[in-house]
């Protein structure tokens, strides 16, 4: 899923911005993986407790928890806004929020293994959808749409790169909550990098498709991917393929919200040292729905926040805290002392 509001800033050079954001976020992703490798079998909250001590560690963990909760309600709101704007305009927002969170709650209740198993099916769906739309749109693509390369201003490049680095790529630090349940901890780095690289490739393909088909029009549509799929028309026989895009969007957001939901429930249960996270699932789901309802007044508000404020809001949590933790670990030589005890 490409953040659509960014297209209004980077215009037809979005593909360049995606590549530079991928390169820039690489060291940060490596630092997350290195942090996970230093503490095998421990998740983010336990790592914070070891590094910062029990009180400051709790505070840092609460920061992360706030991030998970806010990101979860932002993504929930994203999905509900999409449905209200494009598919069912007369239905109230809260209906989609509650229906969606119930599915996610069921997935989280069944545990991380269930999520991991279903994610494979979802990945196949996303690749199929992107490949199908690209093949069906071959006749509409114009490579001249890319042409004045490097036309936008330098600040727009910086802005776009920052946004792409925070929004799809460095969000991967959520794997620090999931890594303890990985089967084969030796290959974490390889598979994380492989996952990020394939997702970057997918985003790149989507953005190139959107720009090649829509050109400058993609900067004024609310959802370029949906608009692109609407254009598919093979001899008046194969039309309305946009339903594929909405399926892909729903499944992506389901996966994302479920993982964020799992991370926030698990981190809260570990901050309060509970023995299981099941009792927290329903209350945190209700709080996330309420937060999603009040968080923005309108879709415009949401887009404005996502483009202008979001990169700075999440930068301390994604770019500063995990590398700082890694630095502290290196300076104090922490894991050795733990092993010695």
């Amino acid at each position, binding site marked *: 899923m490409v953040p659509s509001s960014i297209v209004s800033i980077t215009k037809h050079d979005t593909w360049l911005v995606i590549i530079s954001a991928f390169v820039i976020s690489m060291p940060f992703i490596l630092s997350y993986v290195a942090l996970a490798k230093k503490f095998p079998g421990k998740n983010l909250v336990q790592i914070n407790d070891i590094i910062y001590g029990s009180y400051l560690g709790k505070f840092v963990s609460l920061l992360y928890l706030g991030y998970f909760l*806010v990101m979860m309600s932002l993504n929930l709101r994203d999905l509900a806004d999409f449905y209200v704007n494009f598919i069912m305009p007369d239905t109230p927002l809260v209906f989609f929020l509650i229906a969606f969170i119930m599915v996610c709650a069921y997935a989280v209740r069944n545990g991380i293994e269930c999520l991991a198993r279903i994610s494979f099916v979802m990945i196949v769906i996303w690749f199929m959808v992107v490949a199908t739309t690209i093949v069906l749109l071959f006749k509409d693509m114009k490579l001249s749409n890319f042409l004045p390369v490097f036309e936008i201003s330098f600040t727009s490049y910086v802005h776009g790169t920052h946004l792409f680095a925070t929004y799809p790529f460095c969000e991967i630090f959520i794997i620090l909550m999931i890594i303890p349940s990985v089967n084969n901890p030796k290959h974490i780095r390889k598979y994380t990098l492989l996952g990020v690289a394939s997702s970057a490739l997918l985003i790149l393909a989507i953005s190139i498709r959107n720009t090649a088909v829509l050109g400058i029009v993609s900067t004024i549509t609310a959802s370029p991917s949906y608009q692109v799929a609407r254009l598919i028309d093979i001899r008046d026989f194969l039309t309305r393929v946009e339903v594929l895009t909405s399926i892909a969007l729903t499944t992506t957001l389901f996966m994302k919200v479920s993982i964020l939901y799992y991370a926030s429930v698990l981190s809260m249960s570990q901050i309060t040292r509970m023995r299981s996270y099941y009792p927290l699932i329903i209350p945190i789901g209700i709080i996330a729905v*309420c937060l999603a*309802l009040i968080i923005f007044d309108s879709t415009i508000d949401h887009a404005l926040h996502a483009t202008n404020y979001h990169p700075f809001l999440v930068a301390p949590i994604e770019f500063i805290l995990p590398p700082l933790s890694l630095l502290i670990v290196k300076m104090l030589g922490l894991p050795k002392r733990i092993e010695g005890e």
Partner: protein
Amino acid sequence: MTYVLIVVFIFIAAGQIPSLIKQKYWRELVVFSIFLTLAFTFSLLISLDVKIPSPLKVIQYDIQDKYNLKYQQE
């Protein structure tokens, strides 16, 4: 609307609390009750049309606008 909300929350509490008491999970019971009360207050305020300030808006106006921690589009 408010009555529906109260009934729903009673159902949730009735579904969760007996099993927690049976297993003697006292700490879990306390945390669950705190969070459920929080969720109930939150949703009750929304159903009564009380204007709750959005936390992101508060951060936007009070911190990010003040110290210019944002991008401006031309």
